[in-house]
């Protein structure tokens, strides 16, 4: 099929605003009479608050309002479990808990007022290790709960002991991963405007998920949803990170705005951002694997423990994705998986690009290489022997029968492009070579369920409105977070309608107008949002074609819209231009606005067995890393990353490559350098001088390979790309480093000390 608007690297529709400084991010907005707010955060990771003395702060003439927990109508919120405090009431559970919030005429005055608030704390012992937290007599983070367990998911298939009995080889290994800071370059920002345009409160902000924010604010204010309006436009990166932290910020700003009857602006510094915002979950993972002498997998037993930190946040869903995908894309008759989340007094953890898979993939793909090593097999060979194919049955019992299972294709393409087999053989004899500099090559693969799966309701809506001059406005309930959604959905709308995408403008998301489409997460923007847009366009197209059929006394299906003309399909004669057709439709009184709604195909999950149909389709990827290690210093250079991803259909190849480049770099940070360091709940590296993310100098050569096997459930066959690009890199790097050094490192990140000494040194740093 020949496409005119999709499958093309058109320029981003929001690029001009962004390169000229015209794009307004939340911190750039100002309103008349606006106040500035700042938050007082805890001094301890765990303490009882005896008293908060605010009198002195209130003597400041510039201070207009000061809130503590007792001023918040409903102080607890949360998407899954409502136990996150807007402001700490009796206890602080982690170092980022807010205690009071001040609104003043200037930001400086608000900051000075914070210093005059006296909090009388009783410091309490805390619990900082999720394994400790899991013990029966462990100190309870939330004393009202019976224990520290947030969630336990399980998956049972076959009989894992039978599998191990039949095995010629059994390996048991433990792996662990670290806290990761999202490191969006824009720190969180909110402006809350009271009593504007019939709304009690209107909120502008760097909000990834406007509808979850709307829900949280309405619930905190104890008002109906239609009184809370969230307008989201430009956001400076999110990667899963600007959700609950933004809800808390929006709620605080809203209460202040209603109290002072003035707009409230809140902007976090980087230090505040890293201190308060949630992180990627650290995991401790125990894997046991059994295989035959020939490398056929016979059983896998997995236990994963996730550190949820002070609040439940998204832990129940993050660990659910882990339980579904923890075996990797390998056919196994016998699987026993348990994933757990536990409360601790560490910084809380939530959604971050990958969402519970980068951890398990690091473990499971490291383990595949360890097994290959024990069996003296090539790592690619052992994978090819066990991967899913069409009609394979997954660990959760799902038959992969509705799309192309392209694992073999992505492996072979990545292997060919990277020269994997040759290099693997070449670097095998590292030990015998002189000098400290050694090279290695390693691969990792994944399958990833698209969209939310059985986590939650999975549907999205869109509105397409053709204006009377033939220009088009589209909107959907999904948000542009920088990934390119506005562009991709504009392309999809134009392609389906048969017009040039220059006609299309994607409007900002406004919860009072846009249909609630859930969250823009789980790499669901293109597949869900695209299907919803298509649905709306199909309705409008049908209406226009019907009108034309009547006018020209032709059959409706003999007319098509192509290149901005309505065309007689048989004679290829142009009947009318798109503008003329639209003008006619207006004169006829037709409604040229349509609503599209797409509900994902049915899925199922049995919590008791971990069996079902957790996702309606999957994407597949393979990344191959080539590294050079200085075994004298422990320095790892990632030379090259080859990344092959089956995305169904590339709607915009340039944007898609952008996702791959960015995901590979984030995966590299995860694998080699990033670690949010905590010491008994205190965060030690709270700015970019100590929390290091990859710079342009750290870049490897990246070779993106786009694989297209159109999916029947995707718009023009398109599926997902955001998260797959990030989830496998660290595992591939770890495997390459293991080949280079001959030593296996089972803990992320693979920084200098771990590569050189085999363990991590504490770097010291700031403590507050």
């Amino acid at each position, binding site marked *: 099929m020949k496409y005119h608007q999709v499958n093309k690297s058109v320029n981003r529709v929001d690029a001009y605003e962004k390169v000229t400084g015209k794009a307004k991010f939340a911190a750039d907005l100002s309103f008349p009479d606006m106040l500035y707010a700042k938050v007082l955060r805890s001094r301890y990771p765990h303490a009882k608050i005896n008293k908060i003395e605010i009198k002195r702060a209130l003597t400041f003439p510039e201070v207009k309002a000061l809130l503590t927990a007792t001023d918040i109508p409903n102080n607890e919120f949360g998407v899954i479990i409502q136990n996150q405090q807007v402001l700490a009431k009796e206890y602080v559970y982690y170092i980022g808990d807010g205690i009071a919030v001040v609104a003043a005429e200037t930001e400086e005055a608000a900051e000075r007022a914070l210093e005059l608030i006296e909090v009388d704390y009783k410091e309490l012992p805390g619990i900082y290790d999720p394994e400790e937290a899991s013990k029966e007599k462990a100190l309870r983070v939330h004393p009202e709960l019976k224990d520290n367990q947030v969630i336990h998911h399980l998956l049972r298939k076959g009989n894992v002991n039978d599998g191990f009995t039949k095995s010629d080889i059994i390996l048991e290994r433990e792996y662990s991963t670290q806290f990761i800071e999202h490191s969006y*370059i824009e720190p969180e920002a909110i402006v809350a405007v009271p009593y504007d345009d019939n709304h009690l409160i209107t909120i502008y902000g760097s909000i990834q998920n406007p509808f979850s924010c709307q829900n949280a604010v309405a619930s905190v204010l104890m008002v109906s949803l239609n009184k809370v309006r969230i307008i989201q436009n430009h956001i400076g990166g999110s990667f899963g990170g600007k959700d609950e932290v933004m809800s808390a910020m929006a709620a605080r700003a809203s209460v202040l705005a209603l109290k002072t009857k003035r707009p409230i602006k809140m902007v976090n510094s980087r230090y505040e951002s890293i201190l308060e915002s949630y992180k990627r979950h650290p995991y401790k993972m125990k894997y046991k694997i059994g295989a035959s002498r020939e490398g056929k997998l016979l059983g896998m037993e997995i236990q994963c423990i996730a550190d949820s930190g002070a609040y439940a946040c998204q832990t129940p869903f993050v660990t659910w994705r882990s339980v579904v995908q923890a075996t990797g894309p390998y056919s196994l008759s016998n699987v026993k998986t348990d994933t757990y989340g536990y409360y601790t007094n560490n910084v809380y953890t939530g959604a971050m690009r990958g969402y519970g898979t980068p951890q398990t993939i690091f473990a499971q793909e490291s383990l595949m290489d360890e097994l290959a090593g024990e069996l003296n097999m090539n790592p690619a060979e052992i994978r090819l022997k066990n991967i899913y194919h069409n009609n394979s049955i997954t660990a959760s019992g799902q038959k992969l029968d509705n799309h192309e299972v392209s694992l073999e294709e992505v492996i072979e393409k990545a292997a060919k492009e990277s020269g994997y087999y040759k290099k693997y053989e070449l670097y095998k004899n590292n030990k015998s070579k002189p000098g400290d500099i050694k090279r290695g090559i390693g691969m990792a693969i994944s399958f990833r369920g698209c969209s939310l799966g059985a986590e939650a309701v999975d549907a999205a809506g869109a509105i397409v409105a053709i204006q009377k001059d033939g220009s088009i406005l589209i909107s959907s309930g999904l948000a542009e977070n*920088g990934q390119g959604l506005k562009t991709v959905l504009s392309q999809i709308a134009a392609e389906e309608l048969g017009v040039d995408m220059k006609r299309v403008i994607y409007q900002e998301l406004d919860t009072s107008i846009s249909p609630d489409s859930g969250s823009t997460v789980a790499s669901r923007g293109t597949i869900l949002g695209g299907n919803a847009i298509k649905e709306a366009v199909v309705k409008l197209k049908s209406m226009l074609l019907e009108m034309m059929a009547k006018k020209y006394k032709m059959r409706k299906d003999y007319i098509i819209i192509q290149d901005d003309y309505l065309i007689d399909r048989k004679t290829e004669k142009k009947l009318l231009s798109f503008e003329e057709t639209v003008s006619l439709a207006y004169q006829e009184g037709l409604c040229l606005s349509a609503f599209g709604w797409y509900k994902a195909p049915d899925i199922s999950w049995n919590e008791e067995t971990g069996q079902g149909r957790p996702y309606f389709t999957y994407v597949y990827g393979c990344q191959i890393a080539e590294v050079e290690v200085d075994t004298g210093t422990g320095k790892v250079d990632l030379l090259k990353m080859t990344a092959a991803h089956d995305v169904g259909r590339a709607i915009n190849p*340039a944007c898609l490559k952008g996702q791959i480049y*960015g995901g590979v770099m984030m995966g590299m940070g995860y694998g080699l350098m990033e670690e949010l360091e905590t010491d008994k709940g205190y965060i030690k590296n709270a700015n970019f001088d100590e929390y290091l993310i990859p710079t342009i100098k750290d870049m490897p050569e990246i070779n993106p390979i786009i694989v297209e096997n159109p999916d029947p459930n995707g718009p023009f066959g398109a599926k997902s790309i955001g998260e797959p690009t990030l989830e496998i890199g660290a595992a591939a790097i770890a495997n390459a480093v293991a080949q280079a050094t001959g030593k296996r490192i089972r803990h992320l990140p693979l920084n200098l000390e771990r590569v050189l000494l085999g363990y991590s040194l504490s770097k010291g740093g700031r403590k507050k």
Partner: protein
Amino acid sequence: MNKTKVTFKVNRKQVFLEVGPKERLIDTLRNQLKLTGTKEGCGIGECGACTVILNGEAVHSCLILTGQLEGSEVLTVEGLEIKGKPDPLQQAFIDCNAVQCGFCTPGMLMSAKALLMHNPHPTREEIKTALEGNLCRCTGYEQIIEAIESVAK
């Protein structure tokens, strides 16, 4: 607080301002002059989002005190477009998909512009060196380099 008077050029226009002793250039630009294209990401000169060109050099505007700028010339992202026409570098960022969330983009552009002012034909390594102080979490930098290379030929 004691304010001092300072006169300098911003985007080719003379400005006359009164600033406090601790006022940073980024605050002057964003708050007094309403030039919000310059972004603040870390406040300590590590992320480069606040990069502007001061007297021909790329600097972190979060580390510069405005009171010291008497007689200086500042160029911000808003000054790259001339008479509504994007600078070739801006157009290259659009054409090469060098922009995702766009928050680091103004700083990236200013670092790249300063490089090209000194060295119109930089190598890939020289581009990397010039942009080392600009963090981007979205793009993986590749398409940013491609954009700069496309105007540096």
